[in-house]
């Protein structure tokens, strides 16, 4: 127990940045727009968060800036994919290059600088419950907010009118259009919110998790997030579980490195990527057998009102 509780708490802390990105991507993909640029969006968000926290001294302002920067960068992708009907895969790759390059360019004078970021606090009452308290309620405000956001999105996507519109647009844009829903408006809205959440995910890394700026600090988390959306079959709660599983692997790997095992570091660093591959295969096998629902039907396809498919 003495080992397990800190490990589980660490799993949640390491899983949270990925969770924000995953929730954002679920919203975007539910509308039919795939954003493969998460890695770049997260990096730009991480730098924006770091930079604003450093100059304004307020981590919340930093996180807000990370959200805005993420949404702003994603607007390029949204414009190309929604208005222009461009290839979403290529546009996403361009976005990841642009974001990675821009964050490195802007942050080159700040590498390794530290900031005073967000601090953890014990959540009142709930934090005192044995086992659950130390694992789930000994974190920072962003972790608590992620619980609320996940719960809200479960409700929003499946139980509200705008959520149903969102799913309709992703599953069958033509029918949604006939119902009087503006496909491009829904897609813009949720692609941009998704980008903002990914930016905030990056902000969490720099403002809360490490409290410093390191070039390329996302280290593939943006790509892992995309895999976790598939693992979560586009459902927030399932995706949250996946994120904590991953957080657990990260935490385990760091703990083993700190404990000084005889296993070389590169082997440990490989773990999250190996696991992503394994999990992705597992899910795809199950999907192939019809045991799991597939992606939103229009994912990746542009919609043109005046043309037949």
């Amino acid at each position, binding site marked *: 127990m003495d080992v397990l509780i800190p490990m589980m708490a660490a799993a949640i802390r390491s899983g949270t940045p990925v969770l924000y990105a995953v929730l954002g991507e679920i919203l975007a993909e539910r509308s039919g727009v795939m954003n*493969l640029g998460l890695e*770049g969006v997260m990096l730009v968000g991480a730098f924006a968060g770091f930079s604003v926290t450093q100059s304004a001294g307020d981590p919340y302002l930093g996180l807000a800036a990370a959200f805005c920067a993420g949404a702003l960068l994603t607007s*390029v992708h949204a414009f*190309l994919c929604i208005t*222009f*009907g*461009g*290839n979403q*895969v*290529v*546009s996403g*790759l*361009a*976005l*990841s*290059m*642009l*974001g*990675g*390059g*821009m964050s*490195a*360019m*802007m942050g*080159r004078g700040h590498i390794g600088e530290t900031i005073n970021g967000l601090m953890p606090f014990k959540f009142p009452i709930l934090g005192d419950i044995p086992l659950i308290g130390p694992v789930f309620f000994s974190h920072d405000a962003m972790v608590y907010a992620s619980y609320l956001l996940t719960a809200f999105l479960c409700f929003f996507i499946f139980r509200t009118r705008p959520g149903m519109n969102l799913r309709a647009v992703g599953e069958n844009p033509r029918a949604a259009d006939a119902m009087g829903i503006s496909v491009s408006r829904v897609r813009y809205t949720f692609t941009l919110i998704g980008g903002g959440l990914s930016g905030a995910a990056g902000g969490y890394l720099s403002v809360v998790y490490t409290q410093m700026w390191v070039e390329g600090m996302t280290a*593939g988390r943006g*790509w892992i997030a*995309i*895999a976790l959306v*598939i693992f979560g079959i586009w459902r927030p709660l399932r995706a949250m579980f996946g994120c904590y599983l991953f957080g657990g692997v990260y935490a385990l790997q760091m703990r083993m490195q700190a404990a000084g095992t005889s296993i*070389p*570091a*590169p*082997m440990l*660093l*490989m773990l999250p*990527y*190996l696991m*992503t*591959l394994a999990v*992705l*295969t597992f899910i*795809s*096998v199950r*999907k*192939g057998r019809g045991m799991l629902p597939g992606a939103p039907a229009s994912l990746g396809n542009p919609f043109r009102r*005046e*043309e037949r498919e």
Partner: protein
Amino acid sequence: MRGWRLEPRTSVTPAFSAAVSAASIMLALVLGGVIMAAMGVNPFRAYYEILRGALGSSYGFSETLVKSIPLTMTGLACLLAFRMTIWNIGAEGQLVMGALASAAFVRYGSAGGAAGMFFGMFAASVLAGGLWGLIPGFLKGRWNVNEIIATLMLNYIALSLMDLLLYGAWKDPASMGFPMTPPFPPEARFLTFGRTRLHGGLAMALAMTAAAWFVIRKTRWGFEIRVIGENKRAAGYAGMNVMRNTALVMFVSGAIAGLCGMSEVAGLHGRLSRGFSVGYGFTGVIVAWLSGLNPLALPFVAFLMGILLVGGDTLQVVMTLPLSSVQVLQGLILFCVLGGEVFRRRRLRPSRAAPGTGEH
């Protein structure tokens, strides 16, 4: 209703198509210039320095050719997979595996003479790179595992494997802590041209280009690749084995990237060292897309990207701009070319109310 709308275009002349490409790249350079200006760098001087660095001297020109070699190869690797609408983003990992296999053959293999060494390294790289492509290819073909994520994860795994060896068993004791193998023996090196760093990989790249063109345009298999790329279901009805072709194309794509790894370590560096590839696998994606998936246009696009990479090195030295500014430019070019494609297929027209809707 007043506004603009995009209408389908019925025919496109080659000249118009080329003009769109040129305009797209120009737009990307202008946007890049705006970003540079925002960072307090004179964009005109920056572009001048890029051109001067890459083309202004015979040395610069040869360096640009040196960079176009790996870009041509990774571009071809991506092109082949993209033709079948398989998104192989894993050329980086595949080329690392090819380089690892070459280094392993140099270290453990016993081949007589330069020819034996060449074929040994060649076979090792093809197998290792091919295997690294076959894994996601098989997963895609058999269970429809998302190949973008799979190839990306394998990139990270390949880089970790390289670290494992370079910081461990393969480390050169004389390297003063740098993660690199000892230098390869002379028989494991490619020939170089004169006093430049230009090496025999150039011939390999050109031969591979010709082979790719021949396979895609002139063989039955190339035809199958194109048909499957256009419409998987129709290809299945026509009796083509989509699953086997997916695995096979990914094997060949990985093998091409693997040979790129061999050419870099045996031709250019003469040893395996960490960071020997500066993201060639990813730039290959851009090269393939910019070429319009046309193998014959690809080496020229690779050369253009080579200008950007060599010029980027010059920028770093002369104007202290970080190498990441090249990455920004690459991202912008990809965006603009993608946007430009819309105008190749459609034209912008002032929108009118559709007849019969009663709007005035």
